[in-house]
């Protein structure tokens, strides 16, 4: 209600100032699909952005959650929507670079979407339980190589960023067959994945630093490394560059906005403008940074290149390790 009020008010304000702007996109409310459940990283990010976006958009933005199948259900809904820009998607690393790279049966590909902007980057961190005798990445790798099968890592499910991240980190550090030498334990959701490391079900976890921040500051988990080139606040751990594995910089989470492929340039342009203004909002920046995200707006071209680049790296790894899911 509040959002609609704000939307209506800003529509009025814009109408008064712009005057002649008739028949310009958007002419009516835009549906924004969040392909993950309420309370998840994507949902919170989307709803935090919705606040400043609602102020700059001339029509109300209606946020709806369409959950299921690791983001596929919501993504398919936007893939099949009209290409008029009135149904947009909050795309996420899981639904739009890991899933396409891993799942042959996915009902969509990256070509089915037109990205109007990636606005958030989430550094990835790897951590073990605080009481573990593993103190560094070297210890971890030595243990994987020394006694194959003794090390396991948790994820929020098959085809999640966490699933791929664990394998990619081990591979970069020279483990030949990460999926055979270490065990992947899929759980239901990111919270369960972190708990699995806390209670000893799994040895380590690699996920968005924001999901681990409170455990690290509470001294329950010990961070081993972060994948970004810059250190992450609160994580007393070397970066991938410090450890001499700059390729891992590609292993980051992100959130962006996309529409169905074939959407007009005009719509993409409007969204580029909206995102530029919304991501500069001080309240938005403060809330997002408090949760450990890096706000970096990419224009449509850069977003597309970034996602395609990440997809290619993930796909190459998936093919090399035989992780592709065909059934």
């Amino acid at each position, binding site marked *: 209600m509040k959002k609609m009020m704000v939307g209506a008010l800003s529509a009025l304000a814009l109408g008064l100032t712009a005057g002649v702007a008739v028949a310009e996109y958007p002419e009516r409310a835009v549906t924004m699909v969040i392909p993950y459940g*309420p309370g998840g990283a994507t949902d919170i990010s989307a709803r935090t952005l919705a606040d400043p976006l609602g102020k700059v958009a001339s029509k109300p933005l209606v946020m709806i959650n369409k959950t299921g199948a690791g983001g596929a*259900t919501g993504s398919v809904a936007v893939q099949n929507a009209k290409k008029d820009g009135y149904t947009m998607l909050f795309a996420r690393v899981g639904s739009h670079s890991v899933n396409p790279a891993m799942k042959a049966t996915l009902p969509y590909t990256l070509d089915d979407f037109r990205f109007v902007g990636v606005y958030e980057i989430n550094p990835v961190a790897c951590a073990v339980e605080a009481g573990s005798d593993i103190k560094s990445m070297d210890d971890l790798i030595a243990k994987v190589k020394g006694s194959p099968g003794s090390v396991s890592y948790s994820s929020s499910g098959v085809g999640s960023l966490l699933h791929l991240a664990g394998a990619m980190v081990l591979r970069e550090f020279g483990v030949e067959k990460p999926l055979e030498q270490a*065990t992947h*334990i*899929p*759980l239901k959701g990111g919270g369960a994945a972190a708990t699995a490391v806390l*209670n000893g079900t799994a040895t380590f976890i690699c996920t968005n630093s924001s999901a681990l921040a409170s*455990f690290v500051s*509470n001294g329950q988990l010990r961070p081993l490394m972060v994948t970004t080139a810059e250190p992450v606040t609160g994580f007393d751990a070397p970066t991938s560059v410090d450890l001499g594995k700059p390729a891992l910089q590609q292993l980051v989470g992100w959130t962006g906005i996309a529409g169905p492929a074939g959407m007009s340039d005009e719509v993409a342009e409007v969204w580029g403008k909206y995102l530029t203004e919304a991501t500069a909002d001080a309240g938005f920046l403060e809330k997002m940074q408090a949760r450990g995200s890096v706000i970096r707006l990419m224009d449509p071209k850069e977003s597309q290149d970034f996602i395609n680049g990440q997809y290619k790296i993930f796909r190459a790894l998936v093919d090399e390790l035989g992780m592709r*899911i065909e059934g």
Partner: protein
Amino acid sequence: MSFFDNLLLGWELVSNIESFLALAVGVVVGVIAGAIPGMSATMAVALTLPFTFALSPITGILLLLGVYKGGIFGGSIPAILIKTPGTPASSATILDGYPLAEKGQAGKALGMALYASCTADLISNLALILFAGWLASFALNFGPPEFFTLILFSLTIIAGVSGQSLLRGALSALMGLLLATIGLDLVYGTNRFNFNDPNLMGGLNFIAVLIGLFAIPEILTKVWDPRGNDGSTRQLGGNWVSFAEYRACFKSIVRGSVIGVFLGSIPGIGAAPSAFLSYSEARRKSPNRENFGKGELEGVAAAEAGNNGVAGATLIPLLALGVPGDVITAIIIGAFMIHGLQPGPLMFVTNADIIYGLFMGLIISSVILLLVGSVAIRAFRFVADIPRGVLFPAVLVLCVFGVFAVNNNIFDIGVMFAMGGLGFLMLRFDLPAAPFLIAFILGPLLEDNFRQSMLMSGGSPDVLVRGPITWVFWTMTVITVVAVVRAGFRNSKQATQN
């Protein structure tokens, strides 16, 4: 500083008009949202979250907690009145609540649901305040093997809700297990039974199955036999629960609360299994066991105590470990983080005042729930007096709306009607629906935890008996199964003698 000094400090923090107002508004919003089929407590909390950004941390979090508690209770209102659970957690309340409403005792059932909820809520909050540390370390001992044995034990509930024939109950449970396998395989990520339809990739929507199974058959029965109830009119939902009745159910309420506290403190189980477990325990201990499922007040009390007992306890892993126990607490963690607070052991040191403030707020919330709930059921119970010809079409509209609202998906409405057809057939052939539902909830948990255990141990079954917790649940499972089998033999002997 002693424990009581801390509590006093906390009291100072919440003894202001904003906190009381936030709790009251939260509970009102929660009860209304919970009472609307398809608006789950989770959605209500998620929609309230943005409003807390502008509030002070403690007021904001109390608002969310109010919505949460109100939502869990609110779900029982439509469950009792129109056989449509407002939230999954209240599905066990249907079993006896709806028959009571049919008998013209809707007011009584609602009153008992409220008193049981508030009592369980209070016990749960006290458990959180007094035993948070101990329960949290207990919860951390729960890995996949412990979970597996717990769920295995919980499946024995099916024997308790099967009604006359265990075989029919088992058949119904098998169908539930079968439909629960639709979706993506946990370990391999491959498609299961989805016929290449993206709509089925995420599995069947839980709410759609729930409403389809319970509410739709009721409406279809009406269409099938429109004059069936002409002789009897539903009496006014006016009569109220007496103190003697409350006292008679008190044992079951406390037992349900304790079950709720234990299951709530373990991340990842949720309120629905707790309600069913509490219900089946109450039935097992009750002298008028035969009356369960036909309108036994104690059944309502036990089910509601079981699901509300979870509410305070889910905050145990949240505050003591920083781990969200379910989706709702995951959203509440978000509210903490927005305000720069990080739940976990350190918070007891750095922001102890806020934690104790929350504790005091929770205690107050039980009282507010009692007040708001009393008003709400006085307003809602007259739904029972609406003529069926008006009520059922309205319920159908509500069901369609509610199922759509869960995931904004038209497909789910189709699932609801398909399940409604199945539910109707089950009703005609005397197959109980409750075992289906329990299997549908517990089946995937059982499978996932079994497979996770096997991954942990590299395929060796030893891991399933790795510690005292697993031994306890194995023993309890064996005892229950033996008891059920013996009772079955005794019954068939009696049947042949007669």
